[in-house]
């Protein structure tokens, strides 16, 4: 109990004492995860769209496949990429292992299935007439695509939050692919793992609270944006 109390106090001290190290870790966390999710959104939307509106053999199979990917442990994705990115692996020449790019790649593959599945569900729940109306009004595919995305923007926001939530807090793949290098690939989750293994529980919990706090701020911001949108449903 004592640990929890002191840790909470420590968390706020860390956050607001202007400790540059903690903000660097926070910055790395958000930079890498934002990079990953930004890269994942366009392909995820295209895949979700194809799965929702397309009709081609293997569609059902692909949907189940993406749903299965939802439950693949992060370390498995981490290990697979590790083998691929290692110098002896097929992509070794790019020297990506233990870089932010490698971490970002891991997070990319972690959030892709979430984005695909949740966007797919939103698209299926949406009225197909939205797409057809746009098309029959003369919108080209791309235009109609963005029109439909705007129609389901709340579902998409939820998908973004869920995807971001998974990767910002993910430790296994980040540790394996980034290597937890100080000032470079040390993000909040790997820093927590490190502090814990050092026995510095207070710092670990403090970092956890930092993560929670920032996630809360992010969520509130998005809630605010959504709230604005819902005045005119």
């Amino acid at each position: 109990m004592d640990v929890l109390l002191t840790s909470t106090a420590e968390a706020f001290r860390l956050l607001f004492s202007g400790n540059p190290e903690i903000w660097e870790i926070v910055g790395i966390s958000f930079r890498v995860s934002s990079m990953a999710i930004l890269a994942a959104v366009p392909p995820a939307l295209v895949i979700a769209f194809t799965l929702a509106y397309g009709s081609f053999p293997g569609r059902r199979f692909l949907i189940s496949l993406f749903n299965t990917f939802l439950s693949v442990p992060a370390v498995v994705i981490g290990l697979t990429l590790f083998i691929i990115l290692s110098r002896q692996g097929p992509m070794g020449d790019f020297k990506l292992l233990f870089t932010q790019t490698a971490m970002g790649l891991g997070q990319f593959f972690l959030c892709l299935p979430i984005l695909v599945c949740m966007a797919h569900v939103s698209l299926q729940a949406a009225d197909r007439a939205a797409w057809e109306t746009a098309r029959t009004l003369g919108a080209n595919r791309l235009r109609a695509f963005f029109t439909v995305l705007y129609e389901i923007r709340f579902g998409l926001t939820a998908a973004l939050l869920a995807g971001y939530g998974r990767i910002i807090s993910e430790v296994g793949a980040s540790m394996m692919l980034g290597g937890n290098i100080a000032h470079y690939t040390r993000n909040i989750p790997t820093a927590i793992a490190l502090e814990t293994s050092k026995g510095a529980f207070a710092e670990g919990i403090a970092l956890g609270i930092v993560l929670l706090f920032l996630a809360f701020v992010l969520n509130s911001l998005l809630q605010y944006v959504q709230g604005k949108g819902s005045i005119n449903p």
Partner: protein
Amino acid sequence: MFRKALLMAVSLLVMGQASADASLLRLATTTSTANSGLMDMLLPKFTAETSIEVHLIAVGTGKALRLGREGDVDIVLVHARAAEDAFVDAGYGTDRADVMYNDYIIVGPETDPAGTAKSNTVAEVLQRIHASEKPFISRGDDSGTHKRELVLWQSASKSPDGSWYREVGQGMGKTLQIANEIDGYTMTDRGTWLAYESKLDIQILFEGDPPLFNPYGIIAVNPERHPDVNYPGAIKLIKWMTSPATQKMIGEFKIKGQQLFVPSVGNAS
């Protein structure tokens, strides 16, 4: 609104991305070394002197050597003498140098139900635990510490098996906590012990026997095998680590007032 957010996100993307070149050295070391804080103290000084930035990757000994073997890092700092020699013999590494050593200790419940404190050698300690069948927690993760523990069992002519011998497959810190929770014995490196000591009820029961000494070696990855490793940088770091000034700093490094590492150069063990 959306456009602004996008702009912000893109500008985040463009920000710094370190590139791999001669001014960057990748050092794989063991978790316990990294956790001790020694390297955090030393490496910035090395960078200041040589302008070589060091990326420290903390993994288990087995993984560290593997990273070296595959050419994913430029240099390794580990403590598993037999494995290190095999690594060099196989041509994966070169220019091995002794850097320092610390020691392992045997910890367990204060009541010491196996009576280990009366032992003169670590082999005797293990024999007593084996005979009493009191719980012994093993890392069980193929780490340097785990490998050393198995060697010690061998030299005590006892095979650790039975329900009292528990392999947990966790790091040293977790292993200590588990030992603490179930009043078991375990073997730990002194650095992790010092970090965890205040949270634990278990005590040091045995220390100081030479087989418990734990030498650290630094090995450059063989450039003949991996031509694009930063070999010159690795050699610089090896020279620097074994230089008198650095050796002195290692000897003076303390956690909670206790010296953790004994410099190897000029301290034949």
